[in-house]
């Protein structure tokens, strides 16, 4: 498969795009006012054609343009109603898929950063990183007082799943870390509070409230997916492929989008 320019993550994205494309077209068909969308689209096309047909009459051209803007608003309003039905499940789904396809694990022998954000810059000197066997720091910690942040440059000697610990005054927290190949579920950051942000970017339990450590982050490299001779972020590939799938399925199912 790799010789064809398609790898395993790409196959997963293609599969998800097809399934989501089909499901979303069906949901769109059931939750939208199909007749109103059809009429709104036709009105748009008519006003666009009017621009061409009556091009010598500037008054007609201006009125047509105004009608295009109004008709576009109507169409968007109608088309986004189904969005209200799918936005939550689709968002959660995409967040979950992003855990697997958005980032690539750290590679053994390659340096990466572990960052911790603390409550106060006065305690930066008291923070310490504790690494398990197989991981080692390659440089002294770097303090960024303006951000209340401390960063460590680390390298892994072998593949595996690790837990690193950060110790600060009155608190010690751990953070998962994955080294090696494959498609493991990755959590880039562990956060305190901030439920919405955690929902979208973290796959680990929240840090204890009231502590001095606000977040611990492992900087995984972004994953590029090779497809059609290009390197894609998975979400862009999903965007393009699901649109294509949606276009095909809407034609087959006779659903107006």
């Amino acid at each position, binding site marked *: 498969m790799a010789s064809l320019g398609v790898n395993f993550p790409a196959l997963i994205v293609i599969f998800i795009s097809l399934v989501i494309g089909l499901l979303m077209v069906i949901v769109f068909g059931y939750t939208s006012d199909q007749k109103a969308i059809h009429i709104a689209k036709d009105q748009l096309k008519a006003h666009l054609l009017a621009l061409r047909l009556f091009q010598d009459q500037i008054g007609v051209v201006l009125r047509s343009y105004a009608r295009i803007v109004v008709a576009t608003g109507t169409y968007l309003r109608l088309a986004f109603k189904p*969005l209200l039905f799918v936005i939550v499940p689709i968002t959660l789904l995409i967040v979950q898929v992003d855990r697997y396809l958005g980032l690539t694990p750290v590679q053994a022998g390659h340096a990466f950063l572990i960052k911790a954000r603390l409550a106060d810059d006065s305690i930066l000197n008291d923070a310490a990183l504790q690494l398990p066997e197989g991981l080692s720091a390659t440089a002294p910690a770097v303090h960024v007082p303006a951000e209340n942040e401390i960063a460590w440059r680390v390298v892994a000697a072998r593949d595996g799943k690790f837990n690193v610990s950060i110790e600060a005054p009155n608190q010690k927290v751990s953070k998962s870390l994955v080294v090696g190949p494959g498609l493991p579920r990755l959590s880039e950051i562990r956060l305190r509070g901030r439920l919405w942000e955690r929902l979208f970017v973290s796959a680990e339990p929240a840090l204890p409230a009231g502590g001095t450590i606000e977040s611990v982050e492992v900087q995984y490299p972004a994953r590029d997916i090779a497809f059609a001779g290009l390197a894609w972020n998975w979400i862009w590939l999903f965007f393009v492929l699901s649109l294509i799938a949606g276009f095909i399925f809407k034609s087959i199912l006779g659903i107006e989008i």
Partner: protein
Amino acid sequence: MSWRDVFRELRRAALVGAIAVVLLSPAIAHAYAGPGAGFAVLSSFWTLFVAFLYSIYAFFVWPFRQLFRLLRRRKAYGKAEIKRAVILGFDGMDPELTDRFIAEGRLPNLAKLREQGTFRKLRTTFPPISPVAWSTFMTGVNPGKHNIYDFLARDVASYLPYLSSAEIKGPRRTLKIGKYTIPLGGAQIKGMRKGIPFWHWLGDAGIFCSVIRVPVTFPPEKFPGVLLSGMCVPDLKGSQGTFCLCTTRPSGDKFREGGVRIPVERSGSVYRSYVPGPNDPLAGGSGEELRVKFEIVPDKSGKQARITVGSQSFTLKVGEYSEWIPVKFKAGVGFSAHGICRFFLKELSPEVEIYVTPVNIDPGRPDLPISHPLTYSIYLAKLLGPYATLGLAEDTWALNEHVLDDDAFLAQCYANHDDRERMLFDALDKTQQGLCACVFDTTDRVQHMFWRYLEDDHPAARDVPRDQRPEVIQELYSRMDRLIGRVMSQIDEKTLLMVVSDHGFKSFARCVNLNAWLHQNGYLALKPGKTESGDWFEDVDWSRTRAYTMGLNGVYVNVKGREREGIVDPAEVDALKYELRTKLNGLVDPASGRVGVTGVFDCDAVYAGPYVDNAPDLIIGYGDGFRASWDSVMGKVTSQIFEDNLKAWSGDHCIDPRLVPGILFCNRKIAEEKPAIVDVAPTILKLFGLPLPGHLDGKPWSVGPAVAQTS
């Protein structure tokens, strides 16, 4: 504004706000929500982007285009007496009925037009048939110069008819692969009407024209303006309208013309039938018909049914029409024909019957050009929804054959009429300067089919008590009057408003079979042993036939060297024509004692021009109450010369043109006492300040200055 409106507005604002949040919030927008939203955003952006680009382009080139137009328009608007001309064509509106209804107070807007401007009888053409008269209207010439003499013309090689206005043939080249014939290119369409419509002269001078449904404008010709073709546009089968009656009722009867009977098969609680379409283009003329299947599932009440056509389902009550339903006839990969039709549920118990209109060319996806530019019909379909495109869109045959009743026919007519009104008002909106011409057919069709209720003893209405006869024609005229009122409210005093009809109307109570007369008087011979012929002269002995008739008003001499089996020496033609004129003129109906033929006109006397050779040799002017019989029109010889007309088609105008002038209303004073339809084109050209082409037969009228409108 009511509280309900306020809440609706608030709800809308909340929805728009929610959308804005979705669009503007990076976290959520990052989580792209599926292809529906993706399409919406992309296509909306694309639409606005294209519109924006085009607007920029339009703004930049507009001064240059205006300059160019100004140079061209100097000769037009420089001398123009009007800014805009609005011509409403009411096919068949009769001056005597109009006069009567004005007197009865039914037509206040026309009364106002008469008072402030002009009302005259408008002399029509020989013969007074719509395609002939409207061709003269648009070209300003007599039929000898525009070549249209009837709906039908005859082929001198076969004595068979063909459509006089347009010829449609298969593609020029085909590729034969086994049993398949692949068409290489589209159908060949040739317009038969000659002459140049006056809107071409206007367009060339830089005056914008919107022309809607003027008869005999198919195929549409290129000119600087927009045009939607009218009468003579075929249906998808290529006919002038073939309806179908899908029925479980067994019958071997065939409709004489205009329709087919299709069986409905029952399978449990589901009924199945099909809509017949055009012949398979891949079958190479073998006549294999394409079909679209549909299902009918009656509900338990027996008063309505669910109908499924392809991927579309809709519910119809008994006595109800569907909307226009798109139908796609698939011939093979890449070959399909797109049409639209309406379903009318006639009956669910004890039998199941459904009427389907002729399959019209889909204006949104036209397989044949029905407008100029091609996109104009698409524009109208997108703006207003699907609409009838068939030339004769009101299905008079279905009413004649009792497939539709009066109410169903009227519902169909007025649905088409409402579409036409919407087209007119859009054209008025888009044509603030220039010409806006629109022809309404409803006036013609309704009068044809309901004249029987205007008379005391029309043969077609003898079984309907007088007090139960609806005032259909009165309501028709009132409706047209209201339309005029709405148009008058939208025009200013620099706009000329003209309301014209191509002919008037009279009763059609008695049928005259001139072929029978010719036979009984020794001019037409049948083969030995025959007393009647079939359609289209089957069993006519041409070697002994000197004259024959087909179509509505024409008599042809069987001329040697012209007709395939002609026997009349060209030198004797004039004498024979004189003899026939003498004998036919004043022909009396023995049953009523009334004159059935009030005038017979020699083509050489009434026509002049390069196409006179294609004209009938004599034009028959039937008397009031008479018309060519249904059989005579179809080239059939019967034993009876006169007979009652029992069909719903009970009024007509294909008679002596002197008896059926049209109407002319104008919002300005017109000096001429006897204006003619041939004068309309030169009058409009003159009003826009254009020079008159030398070949025109019409003369421009003296049109007075604008009259201040009073409400």
